[in-house]
């Protein structure tokens, strides 16, 4: 009940959050280790409020969690929403990669056959 919609909403939020190069860079940084807002801001030449804004978007999308430590509030990557997006892509990769590999092999068979018998494709 409604869980379908919830899943859709969550995925939309994930996609929206990921559709920004700075936020992807922040996630990449957090994939290495958790760090504070100050540490995150450094490589981006960005004001703390600007970084905080990105972090809020990521947090709403469930992509990061903030620690309790009032001073540091370290950010941590939460991979679950990314997993859902990856599954969406992975389904196609899993099916189409071997399928198109097989097509390539078949095309080489067809080419070899044509070379042997001369071209006779195009006949119905």
């Amino acid at each position: 009940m409604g869980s379908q919609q919830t899943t859709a909403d969550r995925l939309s939020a994930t996609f929206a959050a990921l559709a920004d190069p700075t936020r992807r860079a922040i996630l990449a940084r957090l994939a290495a280790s958790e760090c504070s807002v100050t540490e995150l801001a450094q490589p981006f030449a960005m004001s703390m409020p600007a970084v905080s804004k990105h972090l809020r978007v990521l947090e709403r999308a469930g992509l990061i969690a903030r620690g309790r430590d009032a001073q540091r509030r370290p950010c941590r990557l939460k991979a679950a929403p990314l997993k859902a997006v990856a599954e969406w892509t992975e389904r196609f990769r899993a099916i189409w990669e071997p399928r198109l590999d097989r097509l390539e092999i078949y095309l080489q068979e067809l080419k070899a056959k044509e070379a042997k018998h001369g071209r006779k494709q195009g006949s119905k």
Partner: protein
Amino acid sequence: MAASKVANSDTFKVTTPSARVIHMTRLFDAPRELVFEAMNRPEHVRRWWGNLGDGYSVPVCEVDFRVGGAWRMVNQTADGHMAPFRGVYREIDPPGRVVYIEIFEPFPDAESLVTALLTEEGGKTRLTLTAEYPSEAVRDMVLKTGMETGAALSYDHLETVAAGLKAAPRAPSPR
């Protein structure tokens, strides 16, 4: 021979330009006309489309290859599991473009619009497949189906996903 390397396999890319669109591309070492034939004529299609490994087969491959014509293909796995697909051709423009509806029969509402483009690229042929789902709810049904099929999943692909989100829909980086 372990993990045989198929030619041009590394040109295969999957990206997600938006939440409802999947974009796939791959190069083939064959002329465009030949790729078009192999992709669309039923006697060819059954030789590659469902042959994903030992024991796979394509018991049904019906193709009425004209605009408005229907197609239906069933993929059978080694353990007897059937995956039936069907659809209708919307546009046919040999040897460069075919647009069709695709429906995975267990989810008849989850229809996607697929555009298959073939372009010449340095003596090879590039296939570009774009599948578009009508809504995110439908997209999620597909997603759920993917989970049911137990597609092997790894976090390695997160990078690909992220890259796909920023990649422009066209012009995949040429190799």
